[in-house]
């Protein structure tokens, strides 16, 4: 990681800004939080979240984490709902291209740092890659226990009966667990963690993932992490095992029956198509055919 502040002459980044926008002291503070988060998988570490040039809810946490871990040699990919070409993804990618001068890509396999909102790429990640999640609400218990101090106590004591009561109630009322995204997971057998609003379909990909997973919540000022090859288990019952939900259809473009699909309404007469939400994966498959 270079501490030198490149100017317009060196590297072609925006003049007047430090490398990757944040000043070095801030990055240092965030990296300390990240180290602690990696050391205690799933534990939420507070950090001094900064004002970023985008609104809360657009990825201020993720962008600060990315800014703190990215180096001049990295290749960045940014996805929003699986797509590389949505507004949020395009503007964050362009932001880092300007303030850090890093190479950007839409190919999952070529990226070293991937910032994501709401998805994990379909292409399996490998060692050395970093997946940065944008997290709106880091506290998995927040709809069940309104007192923040009490949720911290529950985490400290590993007292997660409350979450199981929620799952029990879902099954008792509707016959199945009704959480389709942000499905709570147990990390390393110790901490209950919110996986950020990724679909439950993506939860199994987190388990023993070779890549490092970092989570940043800007508004809530929390960072947490899952180190490579760490167990991540979705909560369930023995006789109602966790089942990732997926639309029962094939992608209209690439024909995949394994990927997570978006439903696209095509007209006012009930017409609809299902498309892969991961545009890079879909594009590659379409090109192969």
């Amino acid at each position, binding site marked *: 990681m270079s501490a030198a502040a490149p100017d317009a002459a060196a590297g072609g980044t925006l003049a007047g800004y430090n490398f990757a926008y944040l000043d070095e002291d801030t990055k240092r503070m965030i990296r300390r939080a990240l180290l602690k988060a990696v050391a205690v998988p799933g534990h939420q570490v507070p950090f001094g979240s900064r004002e970023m040039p985008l609104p809360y809810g657009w990825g201020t946490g993720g962008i600060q984490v990315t800014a703190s871990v990215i180096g001049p040699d990295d290749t960045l990919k940014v996805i929003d709902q699986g797509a590389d070409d949505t507004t949020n993804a395009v503007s964050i990618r362009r932001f880092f291209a300007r303030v850090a001068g890093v190479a950007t890509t839409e190919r999952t396999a070529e990226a070293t740092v991937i910032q994501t909102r709401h998805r994990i790429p379909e292409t399996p990640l490998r060692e050395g890659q970093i997946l940065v999640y944008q997290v709106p609400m880091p506290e998995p218990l927040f709809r069940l226990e309104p007192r923040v101090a009490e949720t911290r106590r529950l985490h400290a004591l590993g007292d997660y009966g409350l979450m199981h009561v929620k799952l029990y109630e879902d099954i008792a009322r509707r016959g199945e667990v009704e959480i389709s995204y942000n499905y709570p997971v147990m990390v390393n057998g110790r901490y209950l963690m919110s996986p950020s609003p990724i679909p439950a379909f993506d939860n199994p990909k987190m388990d023993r993932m070779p890549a490092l997973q970092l989570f940043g919540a800007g508004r809530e000022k929390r960072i947490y992490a899952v180190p490579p090859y760490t167990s991540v288990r979705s909560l369930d019952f*023995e006789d109602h095992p966790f089942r990732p939900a997926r639309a029962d259809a094939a992608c209209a473009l690439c024909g995949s029956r394994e990927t997570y699909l978006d439903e696209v309404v095509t007209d006012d007469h009930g017409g609809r198509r299902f498309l892969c939400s991961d545009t890079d994966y879909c594009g590659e498959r379409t090109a192969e055919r």
Partner: protein
Amino acid sequence: MSDDPILEASGLHLRFGAVAALDEVALRVWPGEVVAILGESGSGKTSLLRVLSGTVAPDAGEVLYRDAAGALVPVHAAGEAALRRLARTEWGFVHQNPRDGLRLGVSAGGNVGERLMAVGARHYGGIRAAAAEWLRRVEIDPARMDDLPRDFSGGMQQRLQIARTLVTRPRLVFMDEPTGGLDVSVQARLLDLIRALVADLGLAVLLVTHDIAVARLLAHRLVVMRRGRVVEHGLTDRVLDDPQHEYTQLLVSSVLAA
């Protein structure tokens, strides 16, 4: 009953400003025994229950609990994690107001199942079967398992609270005026139920009450408190039929006959 007390308190002192809530209180409870703490409002009986259950730390004195493995646990020095583990495995609490002990937004089955899940039960069918069995034992129709407790009557809520407390088979149950606020016929049924369950499961119970009839019906031993001091203790029938202390005599003679 075994030889070693399950709960042993000695030299307890607790002051709220100028008021002595507990003054040199000592108490022992043996396994399988129901001990009632009797006294008027403000006599320190609820304070004593809170200190014994670790909710409030005493100014002086010690509370020792003998766990299932036979080890002595100093209740106030054990730390919060150990205390919570005890509270959800070996102890139970029945509050005067069922709203304090129940989750009103969670179904009756979920309320009973919560303690099972807190100690690691992860089989949905098993949890439901246990919940149905316990609802039946406390005379709630298992068909109402998925109803919310807020739609239950006061007596049913109290019985549900008892089912929820006993489902993990605790060894020691703290009860704070379990029949307070219920009308007499409901109270009688509840007392009957508690008496049967306590005998069935061989529970040790610490019961706080100001109602002498409740104490006579449930308790083996009585502790009479006044102004933070234990003024008399002994077997229930002995204390109530032959009260020695003037305050106990006053209490016994104040009972209204129907």
